């Protein structure tokens, strides 16, 4: 083999290689297989619970299985490289298909073959010929009436040398563009999702009543600063008599340069948006601000009392011991499983010996007595600070997602319900002096429906007299 030959072979090999890949990407089998593979992967993603802690997985699966699954990324499947690769392949597949079909679709929208000649007749099924004993002009008028219902709009008329007249009707030409609408819309949605995950953030923030924040921690565990402050004026939770929640609402203010620029009461399903950042009502709670604790002797006489701010060790007046309030629970679970009501967790630091952690229950003042010791503690007063829990979302890609969704719905509806229909009719006077009408038509989709429409038109034409 000469060098030139080798070079030539290499070239055609290269070309083969490219066209093979192109063939693969535009293959319609690939679409179906890809859609079914994606379904199977998604099923796996719902059967194996995602993003749980490793401990939980160890409870469900053998240790070997956990190792294998976690190496394969099956516990965080939607972010695994192979899942993203599948989606990318789908996107590539759609792009390639769209490019591949572009010319064909554009060509399909062009007006050509305006005349029902022999060549066209061969490609159509059910060409029908009807003969009338009426003058051509009368037949023409009646014909236009008959077709007017299905094909409103004027036909294109061509007269040929042999004296025949040819009519070309069409409808729903632009429905061919539905293909682009449906498939490109999916790419637009992908684009929106990607933009959101790269340029947006989600996070949570708790704001105490009367307080304001200007930063929050995102889910990616970064601190995000805001160009403004969000203040929670008040928070309210309402409940039905059954105890089920009825309404959660926070009165929020947006403060910029010390001035309130926006105020809104948000609820679940009614968030507030400012400068592209949206705040959603998502949870609520309360933390103690101050707690007053009494020190009681075993005989019931009060030895002393202290008002402790949260998370600060302070001396109990007149005693060498220190206390610190550290935690709060709205519904403390008693050892027997019942609800003990509000409870404060306190660390007691005696002058000698080890610190002790204990729970003080508001509804059970003597709960701490059971601990033993010279004295016990009880809560005499508790001041709570309510907070509202907000979900924060900044998603610059969202608008693309909704745009894509609307295009997708419109595209699917047009694609499934409309079609590009063409109808040809030609009129001429035959050898015997009769008027002869030839009719034929096609549709690019929903052919059965179109066949029925054609039958109807032909039936009407046959009844013309």
């Amino acid at each position: 083999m000469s060098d030139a030959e080798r070079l030539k072979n290499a070239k055609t090999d290269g070309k083969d290689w490219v066209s093979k890949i192109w063939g693969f990407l535009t293959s319609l089998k690939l679409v179906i297989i890809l859609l079914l593979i994606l379904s199977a992967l998604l099923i796996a993603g719902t059967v194996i619970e995602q993003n749980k802690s490793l401990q939980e997985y160890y409870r469900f699966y053998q240790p070997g299985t956990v190792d294998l699954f976690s190496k394969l990324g099956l516990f965080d499947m939607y972010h695994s490289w192979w899942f993203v690769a599948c989606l990318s392949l789908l996107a590539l597949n759609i792009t390639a298909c769209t490019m591949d079909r572009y010319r064909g679709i554009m060509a399909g929208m062009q007006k050509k073959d305006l005349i029902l000649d022999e060549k066209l007749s061969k490609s159509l099924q059910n060409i029908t010929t009807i003969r009338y004993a009426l003058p051509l002009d009368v037949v023409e008028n009646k014909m236009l009436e008959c077709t007017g219902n299905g094909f409103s709009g004027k036909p294109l008329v061509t007269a040929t040398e042999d004296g025949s007249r040819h009519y070309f009707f069409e409808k729903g030409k632009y429905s061919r563009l539905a293909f682009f609408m449906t498939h490109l819309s999916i790419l637009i949605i992908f684009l929106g999702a990607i933009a959101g995950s790269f340029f947006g953030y989600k996070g949570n923030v708790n704001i105490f009543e009367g307080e304001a924040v200007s930063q929050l921690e995102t889910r990616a565990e970064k601190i995000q600063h805001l160009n403004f402050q969000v203040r929670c004026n008040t928070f309210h939770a309402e409940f039905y008599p059954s105890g089920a929640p009825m309404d959660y609402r926070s009165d929020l203010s947006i403060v910029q340069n010390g001035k309130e620029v926006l105020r809104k009461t948000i609820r679940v399903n009614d968030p507030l948006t400012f400068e592209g950042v949206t705040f959603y009502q998502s949870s609520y709670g309360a933390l103690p601000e101050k707690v007053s604790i009494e020190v009681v002797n075993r005989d019931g006489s009060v030895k002393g009392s202290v008002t402790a701010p949260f998370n600060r060790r302070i001396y109990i007046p007149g005693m060498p011991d220190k206390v610190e309030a550290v935690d709060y629970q709205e519904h403390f679970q008693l050892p027997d499983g019942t609800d003990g009501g509000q409870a404060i967790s306190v660390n007691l630091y005696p002058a000698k010996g080890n610190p002790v952690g204990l729970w003080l229950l508001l509804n059970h003042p003597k709960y701490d007595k059971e601990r033993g010791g010279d004295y016990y503690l009880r809560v005499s007063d508790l001041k709570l600070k309510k907070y509202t829990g907000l979900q924060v979302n900044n998603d610059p890609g969202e608008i693309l997602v909704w745009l894509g969704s609307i295009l997708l719905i419109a595209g699917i509806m047009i694609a499934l319900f409309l079609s590009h229909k063409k109808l040809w009719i030609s009129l001429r006077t035959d050898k015997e002096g009769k008027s002869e009408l030839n009719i034929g038509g096609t549709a690019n989709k929903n052919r059965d429906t179109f066949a029925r429409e054609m039958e109807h038109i032909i039936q009407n034409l046959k009844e013309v007299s």
Partner: protein
Amino acid sequence: MTNSLLFGIATFSYFFAMVIYVSYLAFRSEALGKAASLTMLGGVVLETAAIGMRWYESYQMGIGRAPLTNLYESLVFFAWMIAVIYLVLERKFKIRTVGAFVAPFPFLLMAYASLNPNDIQPLVPALKSNWLISHVVSCFIGYAAFAVSFGVSILYFFKVWHEMRSTKPAGSFWDALPSSSALDEIGYKTIAIGFPLLTIGIVTGAFWANVAWGAYWSWDPKETWSLIVWLIYAAYLHARITRGWRGKRAAVLSIVGFAATMFCYLGVNLILSGLHSYGSAF
């Protein structure tokens, strides 16, 4: 309450409709056929009244909400939707013999619904949303269309099986059914109705989630399963439109699609866990 009573009578109507449709298939008397359609229609009218009544009663109780927010309500709405879609198709395609295969669905769904608590509970905050209502309505029209397609696809297999081994003279039981190609066509048409509606259902659901929780897609099992269903029917449409899959292969995909639909609707709540389990939102 009046609504429960009406739902009860509607359930009986669906039951009788089922029985009469089956007798019609067996005896093929025109009078029986008419009676079957009328009984089914009666069931639909009664159930429409029941749903309206339930809505009205919720206002009387001072709760005031659309009857579309718990399992019971979704089941009865599903039954209603199947009956409506079927009756429309029956009129349009003259396929009364198919009734015997579709009529059991409304009855069974209503019967299953009656096993679930049906008191009108007030809504938790997350469910107070008009987006939720459009989400539920479009999803269930989609599901109902898929259910009809499923019934027709099953029937398709019976019919093909009969056509293959049939040497008997015409007039047997199976000859009363529409031809296999007509069944194939109806199976497709119903999916063509269901697919856009499922798409609308998924999009409105995403929109609702975004308004309620600030995330339009969080891969929770219910969402993921609705996507699975959507992908299966997308595969069906592509197979049919671009590769000319008809008949058996199309019918198989339709059956698989409906199995996935049912899993998305009930299986996810009963078997998998997620945000969506009815009534525990927020």
